């Protein structure tokens, strides 16, 4: 089978070696990517092209300012903001100035992480993919909702959840790594979040709190393959063992998350990894362990459909409702989102 016009008549392994060599990756990573990432070569090219100026998104923090006022203030400072599929989220083009949108010259705008508006917590620098995951929790400000954010630090998604709840109801945030709690606290305080209670515990112990939740977000600790545009070290720093370790942990966490969900409650499971072992396989295992009567997957709105098979393994057909986001297709981090509802 030929994989590419550049390398006609190459076998899978030869082709993957060539790509790995050319773009500086571990061969095993590319070999895997070729099996499930559409147009892998385009992804690798995209990463190269965008490594110093990857797409940057900000999420207006409506607990402190409305989206329109924020946009106006930043545009006045010269930033070029584009709307996205979410009303709270803007794409920022740091290479262009609002006064000169067609020039390709680098602008001398201060980085988006050091404006007064940032320090004030008027926005959070947050990838569109992360915001979509929170949006899929379908939180309605009017209900008094109890939400578990099972792996919370540094609090990007927690603060968006708080915003969706308009600081009402209750968020319980778990973070077992003590060293990561100050950044969580700092971000929540900067964003004016009031309705969150933080526990320095593993998500697996959330059950011990004795609370049942209307919504659970499991933004699982993962191999972070999906952020290669932002962190080039990911091209080589991980091995298959890391993915395996993450997968084992994720399967335990998702089961604990499901356990504390109220009947009719909804859970979003997400990772910033491409690996099926950390994504579809984790959700598939939860479905196998709990059965059709207990849960159902609900369609996530945005992205490419999740895999229903990988490496000679068939997954539940409803895994097509999960979504995969790719840098070269969706201009986001590589990301996976699954949404499910507990039936009883």
């Amino acid at each position, binding site marked *: 089978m030929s994989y590419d016009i550049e390398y006609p008549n190459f076998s899978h392994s030869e082709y993957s070696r060539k790509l790995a060599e050319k773009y500086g990756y571990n061969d095993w990573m590319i070999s895997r990517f070729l099996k499930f990432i559409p147009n892998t070569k385009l992804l690798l090219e995209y990463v190269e092209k965008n490594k110093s100026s990857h797409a940057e998104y900000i999420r207006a923090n409506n607990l402190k300012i409305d989206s329109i006022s924020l946009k106006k203030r930043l545009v006045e400072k010269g930033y070029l903001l584009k709307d996205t599929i979410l009303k709270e989220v803007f794409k920022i083009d740091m290479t262009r100035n609002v006064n000169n949108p067609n020039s390709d010259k680098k602008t001398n705008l201060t980085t988006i992480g050091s404006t007064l508006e940032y*320090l004030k917590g008027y926005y959070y620098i947050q990838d569109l993919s992360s915001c979509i995951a929170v949006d899929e929790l379908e939180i309605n400000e009017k209900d008094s909702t109890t939400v578990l954010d099972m792996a919370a630090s540094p609090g990007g998604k927690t603060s968006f959840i708080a915003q969706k709840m308009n600081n009402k109801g209750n968020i319980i945030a778990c973070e077992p790594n003590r060293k990561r709690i100050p950044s969580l606290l700092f971000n929540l305080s900067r964003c004016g979040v009031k309705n969150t209670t*933080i526990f320095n515990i593993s998500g697996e112990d959330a059950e011990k709190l004795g609370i049942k939740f209307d919504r659970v977000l499991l933004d699982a600790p993962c191999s972070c393959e999906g952020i290669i545009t932002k962190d080039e070290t990911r091209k080589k720093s991980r091995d298959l063992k890391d993915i395996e370790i993450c997968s084992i942990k994720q399967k335990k966490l998702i089961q604990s998350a499901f356990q504390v969900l109220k009947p009719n409650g909804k859970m979003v499971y997400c990772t910033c990894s491409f690996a099926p072992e950390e994504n579809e396989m984790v959700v598939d295992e939860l479905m196998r362990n709990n059965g059709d009567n207990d849960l159902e997957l609900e369609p996530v709105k945005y992205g490419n459909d999740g895999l229903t098979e990988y490496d000679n393994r068939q997954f539940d057909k409803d895994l097509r409702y999960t979504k995969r986001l790719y840098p070269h297709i969706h201009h986001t981090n590589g990301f996976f989102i699954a949404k499910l509802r507990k039936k009883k």
Partner: protein
Amino acid sequence: MFEILPPSAETILKRAFNNWGIFSLYEKMDIVVKSPKNKESSQIEKTSLENLLGKNNRDLQVHVCSNSLQKELTIKLQPAHSGIIIGQIKNKKFLPNLNFAELVVKHNPFLNYPYVILEDKSASLVIYGRDIMGNAIISFFKGIKENQTVIILNQNKDVIGMGKSRFGDNLITQRDKITIDTVQDIGTHYLKEENKYALHGD
């Protein structure tokens, strides 16, 4: 350890809310207090907060919860953190922080509290801790006294810091003299914490 507000702390807080012109807000708030040092609090678990405030004079962090359920959970489950911190009670005094200042600015629209508004250049320096020269102040609360806590605003009326006045009344605008010491600002804390752990713009 998190506890409900002891009566003596309540009196201190009520007075502070009153002084800053937001007394009506106080009644609506679900407040808990925490002794900031965990180790100490575990050693003194059996000592009531009244004692802490009185004899031992230890600091208390003041946290505002969103609702009574959160307050109950906080006291029952003793988490690592809860709600939003609005200041500390130290030596029988309430020391407000920037979150408290935001409450004041939001709920007291008539600027009926000690404040100064700065011109842009000075405002951009105050954000990172610079003290304030008299000539940078373009408007201020007419009743400012010497050695008073003041809220520092930019021209958009964003809270950018809190300071201590060195002078009272019009002397606050003396030229070429530092007239307000910046005590808290929105940038210094950020520099310390700057994305220490934020790996991937989550």
